[in-house]
């Protein structure tokens, strides 16, 4: 089915879509930085995905992004992603064909061509990978995703909380091994299986997942999430060039692009990291807690954060300021570079910024699937803007 395709442009012609944005190297580097900031400390190092996308662009393959509202209802889309251990990925980058293979096998299983990619999440390698895939496959990228942040598990998406599913998911590896996971509406089981498959492959798998129609994309995705990440990344890069305050620029970009207010609530230095291996059920996530000692205006205050790959919650002097699924970013105050849970070290300094999760992540079903109680807190979800009525610093 793939061989019939000409290019992303010919697909857009067929649909009669005239508005699109060409993703060049600068664009993808800005989107990737913005996505890393929205990744809430998780997602891992995006470098491999970024280099891959650069290579795809260098080979003259065009990457075009379109607005979700321009997508025809009946077309088939799917998401592509890397699922597995981040550290394995940095040592074992993929073959150039894993994404093609996964998508082709998903097409075969579905019996119809996939005509656009939808990014899964903001953060790490999976942000740029959606673009590399679009370039490799000759299909457009839709300006959406399923989280507008990063989360540790495949089912933690607005897609699932709005009634669509990750199945069938195709998982492949570099040796062209293919596993089809079709668990119907059991998205938690799909996640469990997909992770086991990744382990069996050697720590990393490449998946084609969430086969959604154009209509489903519009009804269940975080709309324009790529534009949001792009605006954030662009603002921070501009701040670096022009020696502006990256945090202020970031907050302003969120207001402009998403009409949402973020909060700058703490500045401090990491003084204690307590890493804990595996949860009781040995789910296989990096769990732990980190303590920051306040500096500057926050001297004398103490911030504590729990993490499960991503930052989960924030309390300052025992007062809860943020709960999942709202976003927490710890950013280098000078460069705006996010401090990730996998590389944070004693002595790192940063500014903590809180960002309200997208409305489609905050539905009752969403709070049930990835709110505080899901992560083991005996707390009801309270939106970050209600926990920070004083508004933080600007």
């Amino acid at each position, binding site marked *: 089915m793939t061989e019939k395709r000409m290019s992303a442009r010919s697909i857009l012609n067929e649909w009669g879509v005239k508005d699109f944005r060409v993703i060049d190297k600068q664009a993808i580097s800005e989107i990737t930085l913005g996505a890393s900031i929205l990744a809430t400390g998780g997602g891992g190092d995006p470098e491999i995905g970024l280099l891959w996308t650069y290579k795809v662009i260098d080979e003259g393959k065009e990457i075009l992004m379109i607005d979700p509202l321009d997508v025809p209802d009946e077309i088939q889309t799917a998401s592509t992603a890397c*699922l597995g251990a981040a550290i*394995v990925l940095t040592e074992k980058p993929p073959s150039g064909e894993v994404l093609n293979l996964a998508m082709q096998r998903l097409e075969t299983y579905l019996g119809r061509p996939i005509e656009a990619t939808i990014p899964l999440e903001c953060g790490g390698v999976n942000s740029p990978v959606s673009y590399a895939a679009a370039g490799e496959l000759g299909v457009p990228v839709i300006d959406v995703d399923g989280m507008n942040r990063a989360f540790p598990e495949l089912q933690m998406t607005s897609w699932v909380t709005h009634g669509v599913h990750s199945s069938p998911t195709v998982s492949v590896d570099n040796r062209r091994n293919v596993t089809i996971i079709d668990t119907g509406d059991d998205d938690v089981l799909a996640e469990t299986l997909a992770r086991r498959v990744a382990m069996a492959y050697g720590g990393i798998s490449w998946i084609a997942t969430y086969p959604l129609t154009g209509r489903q994309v519009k009804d269940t995705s975080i709309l324009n999430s790529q534009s949001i990440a792009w605006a954030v990344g662009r603002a921070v890069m501009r701040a670096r060039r022009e020696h502006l305050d990256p945090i202020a620029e970031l907050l302003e970009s969120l207001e402009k692009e998403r009409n949402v207010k973020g909060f700058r609530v703490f500045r401090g230095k990491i003084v204690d990291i307590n890493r804990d291996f595996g949860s009781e059920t040995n789910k296989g996530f990096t769990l732990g807690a980190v303590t920051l000692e306040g500096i500057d205006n926050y001297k004398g205050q103490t911030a504590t954060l729990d993490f499960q790959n991503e930052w989960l919650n924030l309390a300052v002097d025992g007062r809860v300021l943020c709960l999942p699924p709202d976003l927490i970013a710890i950013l280098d105050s000078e460069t705006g570079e996010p401090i990730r849970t996998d590389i944070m070290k004693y002595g790192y300094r940063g500014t903590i910024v809180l960002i309200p999760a997208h409305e489609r992540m905050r539905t009752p079903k969403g709070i049930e699937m990835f709110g505080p109680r899901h992560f083991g807190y005996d707390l009801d979800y309270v939106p970050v803007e209600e926990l920070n009525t004083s508004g933080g610093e600007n």
Partner: protein
Amino acid sequence: MKETGQLRVGFDVGGTFTDGVLMQGRTVLAKAKSLTTQDVTGGIVEALDEVLSRSEANPADVAMVSLGTTHTTNALIERRNLNQVGIFRLGAPATTAIPPLTGWPEDLKQAIGGSELVHIIRGGSEYDGRDIVPLDKQAIADACREMKGKIDSVAITGVFSPIINDHEEQAAEIVRDILGDDVHITLSHRIATISLLERENSTILNASVITVMQRAVKSLRAAVRERGIEAPLFIVQNDGSVMSADYAIDYPIFTVASGPAASVRGSVYLSGIEDGVVIDIGGTSTDVAYIVNGFPRESSITVTIGGVKTNIRCPDLLSIALGGGTIVKHEGDVVTSLGPESVGYNLVRLGKSFGGPLLTVHDTAVALGKLQQKLDVFKTNYVTHPEKIAALPKQLVEQAWMKIKQTLEEVIDKMKTTPEPVPAIFIGGGAMVVPKVGIAGVSEVLSPDHFEVGGAVGTTIAEIGAYAEGVVDLDIDDRDEAIANVTEHATDNAVAAGAIRDTVSVIDVEEIPFTYMPGKREKIRIRVKGAVL
């Protein structure tokens, strides 16, 4: 107190000057400064002659000659005298999405032979020791035959080789069989840690400067022998410790950025302190390093060499724009900012102390009476226009002094890893003109003698640093046993670099968990040090 012990000669090659010292234990018997020459070796030989003649030491009594050198860095930056490198990556069918040399500057790529010498071979390992696929030995042999006569050296990088190096070793054997011993082979697991692309870059860079280092060692050995010194030659690596010259020929990339590390080690050695913070204050900037067990803490950030991203270990240095020549900006009596601009070498023309128009850090020290002796760096006295200094408003000067102190306190705090006060060692030409009393977070401030040749002194500390790493699954493996295994590997590495086995001890143990993977897998990284004499 006169120290006894072996005589050691050390050199530190900088951009402008080459420093030399003759040491006996912690005592500096003689020191010399020569201009760094284009070929680097010339300046070293000149400094050597000077320390020998000043100390009147018997060359035959010298037990160790060591140097920190910029031969390899210069060659890489200037793209000069580089080897043609045959590049093998053992990892297909994985890894092909990002081939070797991706992201390299075009001129450097061409200088080492370019993409035609790149071969991605089927092979490599999974993290748990299984083969990705069996190693394609035939493909390696074919590639060697094709490259025969076209290459000087070979770089081999296998997926997960820092954990399992079998495929790299097997590939090396094939290369040696076909291309002979004249083609030098670099294996990535000897160079750097997990992270394929950066390790591969480090390995290729290493292979490209083998001949440069070979020639440097050869000419230095000859020069040293000519002067009647029979002692072994050591080269400084970028953790500030040394390695034997033969080892350095195999691993020249470890000399990159060795200069600052040697300075840090030297000042620590002179001060007799093993843990603390070193503040190197120059004319325009200040470098701060943190010392643990006598070694500068390693940076976890990728290091760019000649435009290429690498993951070789380097000291964690924090630089800020504060030095003796930094301009104190003010509106009337109120300080608006410290720098970042500096008058640099023009201090003697532009600074208030010298009749110039600008207020600098140096001038505030003069105004507050903190400077009372002539400084070597100036031909004149430290102040030639005292009337200009006397005219400065007291409030302004005190405010500036306070601001300098705060800036130093902040940068020290950034590098510290514990809230407890730690000793601070102030070195560098600017150390005389900054506050050293009542610094927050600091238990004591030390300014050892001879710190201006600290880099050369650092090279004479007869210690070798090395490391090793491994992956363990804590559900299956015993943690203590795993740590013991990795320690043994690190010890082997130290011995290969010239250390005496019995003297090797652990500097630090780092454990990094594998995220997004079920189980209790983690990477263990262990650093050790050992004595060479």
